[in-house]
């Protein structure tokens, strides 16, 4: 009798667990909603300084700014140099693909993504509410504030995380746009050059303000020389140019919404491509809309 009953018990138990998970997931707020509800104060304190931090530099004479902008929209040259002036980037075409379409497109192969596979259109990102954790546990706050010097030992901190981290961690899918840029990259120096493609950045701007933080071109590269093991992890975006070498390639970046910034990818932002100047200490010092070292994405030809 017991032998006959046991398999049914196992089946019913498995079914119960699965249904319970479904019910729990359905009743939960989305992770973004929970994050917004529980950390509104913290989010405001983060967002307000961010808004101040990323206000663009304005000139005294706005007519000069608009004149420069007009010139930029008519620029034919879409060529910039890297910060050491040894490698030239000529931007040819671009294409933007939304996350919902990235897995079904056939043009950009999974092998050439840094991850080695096509991105999951529904990928999840974890967010840990450290401000709430630190508020609830003053010893943890002291530990983090002191860079691990006070409050508890490293082992105690790790044990704390093992026990409590999940309570403060949520997962959500950030809306993402994948930008693919076809370009011609040339070594213009006299010797060989090791170039890091991910030094190139894309910066979003809206009404003269930088939105979020610059995004690295670290998502896609179809000419990598380092495609396996640790070399892929560390150096996928590295390319060693021989003297006079030129490559035509496609590079890509993932622009994704970040709840820590006021950004909405359904809006029309301006995108600027370039390298952060050497010695840049603060994004307040940067204005890609008037900096000749940056190229406006809309000035490039869009892939048909």
């Amino acid at each position, binding site marked *: 009798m017991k032998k006959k009953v046991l398999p049914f018990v196992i089946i019913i138990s498995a079914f119960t667990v699965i249904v319970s998970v479904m019910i729990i997931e359905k009743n939960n707020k989305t992770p973004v909603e929970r994050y917004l509800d529980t950390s509104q104060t913290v989010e405001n304190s983060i967002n307000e300084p961010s808004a*101040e931090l990323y206000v663009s530099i304005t000139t005294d004479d706005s007519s000069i700014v608009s004149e420069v902008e007009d010139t930029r929209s008519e620029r034919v040259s879409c060529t910039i140099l890297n910060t050491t002036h040894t490698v030239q980037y000529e931007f040819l075409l671009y294409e933007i693909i939304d996350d919902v379409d990235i897995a079904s497109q056939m043009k950009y192969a999974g092998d050439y993504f840094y991850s080695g596979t096509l991105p999951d259109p529904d*990928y999840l990102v974890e967010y840990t509410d450290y401000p709430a954790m630190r508020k609830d546990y003053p010893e943890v706050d002291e530990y983090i504030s002191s*860079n691990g010097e006070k409050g508890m030992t490293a082992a105690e901190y790790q044990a704390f995380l093992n026990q409590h981290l999940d309570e403060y961690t949520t997962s959500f899918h950030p809306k993402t746009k994948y930008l693919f840029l076809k370009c011609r990259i040339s070594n213009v120096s006299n010797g060989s050059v090791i170039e890091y493609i991910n030094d190139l950045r894309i910066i979003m701007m809206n009404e003269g303000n930088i939105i979020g933080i*610059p995004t690295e071109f670290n998502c896609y590269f179809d000419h990598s020389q380092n495609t396996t093991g640790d070399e892929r992890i560390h150096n*996928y975006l590295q390319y060693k140019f021989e003297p006079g070498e030129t490559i035509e390639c496609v590079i890509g970046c993932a622009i994704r919404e970040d709840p820590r910034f006021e950004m909405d990818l359904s809006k029309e932002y301006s995108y600027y491509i370039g390298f952060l100047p050497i010695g840049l200490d603060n994004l307040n010092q940067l204005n890609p809309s008037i900096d000749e070292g940056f190229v406006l994405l809309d000035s490039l030809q869009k892939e048909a």
Partner: protein
Amino acid sequence: MKEKIVVAIFAIVLAFSGLVGFSTAVNAGNTTDTSFQFYNTNDIGYTEGRNKENSTKVYIHPTSGPALQYTVQGNNSVGWQNRSSSHIIYNGDKASFTNYVYENGETQARLCMERTQTAYQYTYGVWSPDSTKNYTVYY
């Protein structure tokens, strides 16, 4: 008969797993390297800020030149703040720096580099703000 029942159980569980569509959260992190250089006649220097996407250790790998003392910094509304202890890393070493950039809600990390000797030489290396594994851990 028992084997058939076990197979059937697994098949049912797998089928329902597909229907529910379990997703795995991924914070892969900003783990690609970029290079840095520091001229050792200067007292102090900094790398560019790079996106910090999770709470993993910062990876630092000096490749040539005099040893430097490194500190990881995070960027907030008042500027760049030290978010790690300071350590000297020698050429060839691969260091995993414990830091608290992400825990402080900061979105960018950079390296602060200080010379340990005056020299008319550059120190070169590579680094990444996040990492997938630990090398020599510095606390």
